[in-house]
Every structure is written in structure tokens, then in C-alpha cells.
């Protein structure tokens, strides 16, 4: 009888730890991500869906850009430790979710033509408003994007956008420079290859 009582007293912190773990479910571990690199590729939107192309020339009405922002993990939330026993976590009833969080916010996205585009947009002109995200939503003409960066897995995921060109160039070739500015003021920019338009 005495032995049972002693065992009960010894198990008490374990039970308390389990109850505490069950009653205090964290919302999920948080990871913070930031933009690391920018990648720019040319899209051929002549088919049903846009595809990345390495071809020198594509159809004039099918041009697009794929902007890929590579992210890195820059922070991780401290893991909650049980008050009594570490092993209480073995019995925890909470699911171990995690959420992405962004340290960076994309403030502006701007697209400049690197070579003459039409009579009103010479080389170096801002042609942001000529591009639509996925061909449906115009990029804001002033470039203000204000989009937080989220990656929804534990591992950093690239954030990508398809910028579809909705105006035809007056010339037979085009090249664009994309500039992404994040909240910290850091700028990422990349220039696409020269593509012949047919």
C-alpha cells in the first residue's frame, strides 16, 4: 500500500506535465522567412498555360515573365518546454503544426523595359502597368505591391509570379528589368534575356 502511494507521488509530475501539455496547445511553431534571391525567366503563353522557355524567339502576343523569389529561413520560434517533465511531450495531445511568417514584405514590384518598347516607352521606361499577374490582375501602375512573404512549409519555398505582358511591343525584340523592393529597403533586380518577337 505504501509502495503504491510512493509510486503515485512519483508519477504525479508526469501526469501534471501531460495535462499541462494537453491544455496548452501552441498555435504552431513559427518560422520567419526573408527574400534571398530573385530569378527571372521568359514565359511562352501561347499554349493553354504559360511555360518557361529558353527559346530565342516567341510569338509577339504570348510574352510573359516568371519572377521567382527564393526565400531563406531567418528565424524560428523557441520551442515550448513543459513545466515539469521533458517526457510529457511524448504524451502531448496537441498537433505539431507550424506556420510561415515573413520578415520581409514586398513593397514594390516594378518592370522597366531595357530596350525601346514602343514610341512612348523608350529604353529605361516603367512598363509595370503593361503586365498582369497570371494575365488577369493588373500590376499596380505605381508599383506598390505590399505583399507579405509567406511560405507554408517548414522549408523555405520560392514565391513566384507570372507577369503576363498585355501590350504588344512595336519592335521585334524585347527585354525587361524587374526590380523588387522589400520593406527593409533592400532591392532585388534581374534583367531578362533579349527575346525576339515573331
Amino acid at each position, binding site marked *: 500500500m505504501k509502495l503504491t502511494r510512493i509510486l503515485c507521488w512519483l508519477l504525479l509530475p508526469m501526469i501534471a506535465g501531460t495535462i499541462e501539455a494537453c491544455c496548452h496547445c501552441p498555435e504552431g511553431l513559427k518560422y520567419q522567412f526573408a527574400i534571398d534571391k530573385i530569378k527571372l525567366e521568359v514565359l511562352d503563353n*501561347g499554349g493553354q*498555360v504559360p511555360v518557361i522557355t529558353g527559346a530565342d524567339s516567341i510569338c509577339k*502576343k504570348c*510574352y510573359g515573365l516568371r519572377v521567382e523569389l527564393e526565400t531563406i529561413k531567418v528565424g524560428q520560434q523557441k520551442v515550448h518546454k513543459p513545466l515539469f517533465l521533458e517526457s510529457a511531450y511524448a504524451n502531448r495531445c496537441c498537433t505539431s503544426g507550424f506556420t510561415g511568417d515573413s520578415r520581409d514584405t514586398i513593397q514594390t514590384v516594378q518592370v522597366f523595359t531595357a530596350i525601346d518598347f514602343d514610341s512612348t516607352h523608350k529604353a529605361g521606361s516603367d512598363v509595370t502597368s503593361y503586365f498582369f499577374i497570371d*494575365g488577369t490582375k493588373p500590376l499596380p501602375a505605381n508599383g506598390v505591391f505590399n505583399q507579405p512573404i509567406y511560405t507554408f512549409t517548414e522549408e523555405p519555398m520560392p514565391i513566384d509570379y507570372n507577369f503576363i505582358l498585355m501590350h504588344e511591343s512595336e519592335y521585334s525584340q524585347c527585354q525587361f528589368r524587374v526590380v523588387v523592393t522589400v520593406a527593409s529597403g533592400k532591392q532585388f533586380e534581374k534583367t531578362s534575356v533579349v527575346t525576339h518577337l515573331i
Partner: protein
Amino acid sequence: MKAYFFILAALLFCLANIQAQQKKKLYAERSKFMMSLEGGGLIPVHGFSIQDPFFKNSVNISDAGGFVIGRIAYFFSKKWGAEFEFLPWIAKSSDAGKAQQYLINQFTSKYYVTAPWPQNNIDAGVVSFMIGPTYKITTGRFMIMPKLLFGINSYDGMMNNYTLHLKEKQGNEIIDMTYNWNQDASTEIGWVFSPACTFSYRVTKILAVNMSVNYLYSPSVRLVYTTTEQNYKSQRQTTQEYIFETTFQSVAVGAGFSLLLK
């Protein structure tokens, strides 16, 4: 002597049976309430091809549907009574795939078309509430009840938000074509007139099996449809309205059972 008793027993048996039949007949005639439940199918006769404005009669779509009838009849005399009928039904386009293909074919030369399966979008729901006089003819276990019903039809859910997503071939233009039924501008409640007949066979004193035929006629149904073209390249939305005036004629054939109550 034996033969005499045998004949007498046979006569008594027949008499008892006739009396029982008469009692049953009396019950059938005396029962004041008749509650029925039936299920069945709807055979379209005219003009309820709900997608006509879009298909311009080039697709043969019949709106064969399924229905359930709930019916309560009250007989205030041996023969005459009044009947209330509740008939909700769903018209399912028997050729939704063909209809979809018709719409798609209008765009395939210039666009890649992504289309949802149209079945759920082009089903129509109609509920009929009808009331009218009925006459009961009883012969043995059989009852025939011709009737003349009047009432209202409530129309709902025809061609709801059916969207075709169009992507230009060799181009960046994207268009969403949405086909809709404009419920506010269409007939939501319309008159319905229905000569009908129910044939019943009493299985027991209170239970009968039925078969009924209803001819449903709605003199004027106004259906208004819209097509909305959302062009993402021009950022313009254009809406076109189609008005479709029709009559609705259909034959509903159903079977079920009835309870005869005093």
C-alpha cells in the same frame, strides 16, 4: 342430404363474401381522407428546354425529370372531394454533355476552353402546389379519381453561374464567360393547370396502391438569362440579356400508395 348441406354451406360462404365485399366497398366509399405519396418521372411535351437562349434550339435537350407527389384528398360526399397536390420536381438535362460541347465549340477556334461539368449548373427545380375538385368512381377494389387541379409553379435554379474560362490561343487574352439565370427578372411564381387521374387498387381496407397521370400546363413562363463576358485584357465586363417566353407542358407519371381514412 350431404349434398344439400354442401350447397347451403357454399351459399352461406358466398353471401358472407358478398357482404364483406359490400362492407369494404362501403368503407372505400365512406372514407373521407385519402393521403398519397408517389414518385415518378416527368416526360416533357413542349417548350421547357431551359437552355434555349444559349443553344438556339440546335441542341436537342429534353428536360426529363424526377418528382415526388404528396397528395391529400378530402371527400365531402361519396363521390366528390377536393384535393391538394404538392409536386416538387427536378428537371435534369438528359444531354448536359452535348449542351456543354455546343457552348465550347463556339470558342474553340480562337481559345483554349476550360469548362466545369455542367450537370449541376443546368438542372432546374420546380415546385407545384395545386388544388382542385376530384371525383371518385369505386368498382370493387378499384378506384378511379379524375381531377382538375389549378395552382402555382415556383421555378428555381436554372443555369446558375456556369462559367467557361477562355484562354486565347497564341495570345495572352483571358475571358470568363458566365451563363446565368436572372432570377429577379424571370417568372419565379407562375400559374399551372393540371387535368389528372389517379388509379387505385385497395390492397387492404385502408391501404391502396396508386398510379397517376398528371398533365401539367403553364401558360406563360418568362425566363431571363444573362451572359457575362469578363475580359481581363481590356478589364471590361459586358452583360447580355436573353428573354425567353415559353409555355411549359409536361406529363408526370407516378406510382405509390395511399391511405384511406374515415
